[in-house]
């Protein structure tokens, strides 16, 4: 289906953005409201789940990983998002007691529901069970909010947030730092500034 046809088809009907009541997830009532406090141990290692319960269900985590890997798949440079723990990162994020997380949680969970509904509407299956081209067919329609049809605006906002979360989790890891070529966070005896050849190339003094 070409893009023009897709748009017509999408316009005719797309899955409605779900109106969530109480957020889904089995552990909501157990969400701690305290967070890590104002004086946490900064030297400890905090794995997701250490400070507050992770709340995504098994099917949600499966979908979370599939979508994260559509956004950041493995390539010649580095492995995929899910391979470096991004699902745990996102689960930690949407389960946290802070305002940003409380704001993002219904968007992410709503997005998951919307993806499945849209997949069912278009292809009669859950999003996780679609072929890769079918999945990207849906993602193409919501990946750029500025070019997205009005009826898909909520889904596009979800996708933008989810891409930020996926990238946030991925580029925070050693794999992500290496992927972009970050060389810092090592002690140096001296700092010599940029190499002269690079400055010449850029016509800088």
């Amino acid at each position: 289906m070409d893009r023009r046809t897709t748009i017509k088809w999408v316009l005719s009907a797309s899955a409605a953005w779900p109106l969530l009541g109480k957020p889904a997830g089995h552990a909501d009532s157990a969400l701690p409201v305290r967070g890590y406090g104002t004086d946490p141990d900064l030297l400890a290692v905090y794995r997701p789940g250490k400070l507050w319960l992770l709340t995504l269900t098994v099917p949600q985590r499966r979908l979370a990983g599939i979508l994260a890997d559509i956004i950041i798949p493995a390539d010649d440079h580095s492995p995929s998002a899910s391979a470096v723990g991004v699902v745990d990162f996102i689960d930690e994020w949407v389960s946290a007691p802070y305002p940003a997380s409380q704001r993002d949680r219904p968007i992410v969970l709503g997005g998951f529901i919307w993806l499945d509904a849209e997949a069912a509407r278009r292809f009669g299956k859950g999003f996780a069970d679609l072929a890769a081209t079918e999945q990207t067919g849906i993602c193409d329609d919501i990946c750029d909010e500025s070019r997205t049809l009005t009826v898909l605006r909520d889904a596009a906002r979800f996708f933008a947030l989810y891409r930020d979360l996926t990238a946030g989790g991925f580029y925070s890891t050693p794999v992500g730092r290496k992927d972009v070529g970050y060389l810092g966070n090592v002690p140096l005896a001296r700092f010599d500034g940029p190499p002269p050849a690079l400055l010449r190339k850029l016509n800088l003094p």
Partner: protein
Amino acid sequence: MPFVTAKSHRSAYDVIVVGSGAAGGQSAYALCMDGAKVLMLEAGRRYSPATETPMFQTPDLAPLGAVGTPQKPFGFYDATVDGGWDVPGEPYVRASEEPAGRFEWWRARMLGGRTNHWGRISLRYGPYDFKPHRRDGLGFDWPIGYEDIAPYYDKVELLIGVYGSNEGLENTPDSSPGCLLPPPKPLVSDLLIAQRAKRLGIPAIPGHRAVLTRPLDFRHSPARLHPGNVTAQKILAEDMRNRAACIWATPCGRGCSIRANYQSTTVHLPPALTSGNLDITTDAMVYEVTLGRDGRANGVSFVDRTTGRQQHATARVVILAASACESVRILLNSKSAQFPNGLANSSGRLGRYLMDTVGSTVSGQIPLLESLPPLNEDAADGQQLYVPWWLYPDQRAGKLPFARGYHIEFGGGKRMPGYDTAAGIEWLTGGSYGVKFKQDVRRYYGSFVYFDGRGEMIPNDHSYCEIDPSVKDKWGIPVLRFHWRWSEHELRQAAHMQRTFADIIASMDGRTHGVVHSDGAKAIAPGGSIIHEVGGAIMGSDPKTSVANPWCQTWDVPNLFVTDGAVFASNADKNPTLTIMALAWRAADHILERMRRKEL
């Protein structure tokens, strides 16, 4: 036993210093090194940078990728303990929730206070900055001039270690020979900004930050700082030897376990403690300066946070250095028959003329900086270069619609990746995902630049704090209520910043991100949010219109001093910390001299 509880306080100290940050640290250092017995009271907990600083921790080891939350607003690894815009159990009140009337108050509850996380930008006020009213008829002149404080700027720079350069620019003072450490090498983005800004007539010069770009001169500086005082020289030389130079890694805002930048806890307090003249009590929340029958301060009352009990300590002299607003709060809460409106408030000016810095930001993306080869650009953690205020001639010629200037802090480079590295970049990528997204992130990483304007606010009658009539903190201490209003000068200045930054980005063939505001009210950051709040107990030459005299001594109570930002009579664009320290050292020398003469 330098860290003591209220139980083991001496029966009397020469001086009580309330607060342990830039002002308290500097006051205690100068007094102790010259033999005065000092008790320092800090509201927060004891804090040890050597053992608590997360130097090389990466965001994947922290909750939520180390992003800021209300409990750690500047990120998980920020040094601040028990602080931020909200301190649990210690509220404050805003008279208005309107954006234009909003004031935000950042506090820390830890030894060393906000010096543990601050930006280390250390700019001198210039001659104009002490006499602004004389130049344009607005605000107030200080009762001192640049020449009074210049020797103390030299001393503070020698002691704490500040990098920078002498450029001989208007109202941007040079330091005495040997005071500054060499500036760090600029980044690629710094050099590009400097090159393009210069074409617009905007000068970029080396920044001034309290970071050791090489070891301190422990052989010569101690004698310059403490002439004739062999004991002090020995203590300081040993301490300077124990401070390492910068290792060109890890953000300064986390604090520095190797003591390569200035924080009170790594620079002022260790030698003061070594002198044997300093006792420190942490968790001591001072709420009142007590008055003797002779009308002089005889000590302070505080809540011991560990027991909740009220305690009292006595001394010949009391120095408030609790931060501008906290010191004002203590004075306003120190009511007596003699001072029904708060101590040292016979002028009625206590709490008045609160100022912050005008702040405005524009960021952009620079195609010339895309896809550069991998480089280690941690450098000095920013401010390798900056732009001092450069439009004095235009202002003199009446070509600008506002009084007073601003400087520009800017940055870019290949910073440690984290949550922000690839967030919200669809304005560049068109919403890519998949392998293309990864390519886009590599392409754009390190190609972003930001410009922060930091400008002078003129004191006005509508920006002040007072005691709220009903709200108390968890210790039962009445809290502050803030009133805030910008004048047209600040709003127009903020709009001017936006246009200037957009011009610089355009001159780099870059793209600005987001709206460039021509409306100053939309361009300006809320009051207090730059965390340069000063004023509230301003110094002056007339007891009727000011709270303190040129020595930071309150007009009303001769043995009561305020050495923090509260005494500022103006808030030049230059970040206040270096000036706070210079004033505090000058006041300490004055106190020592008066004590020797038995006048205090």
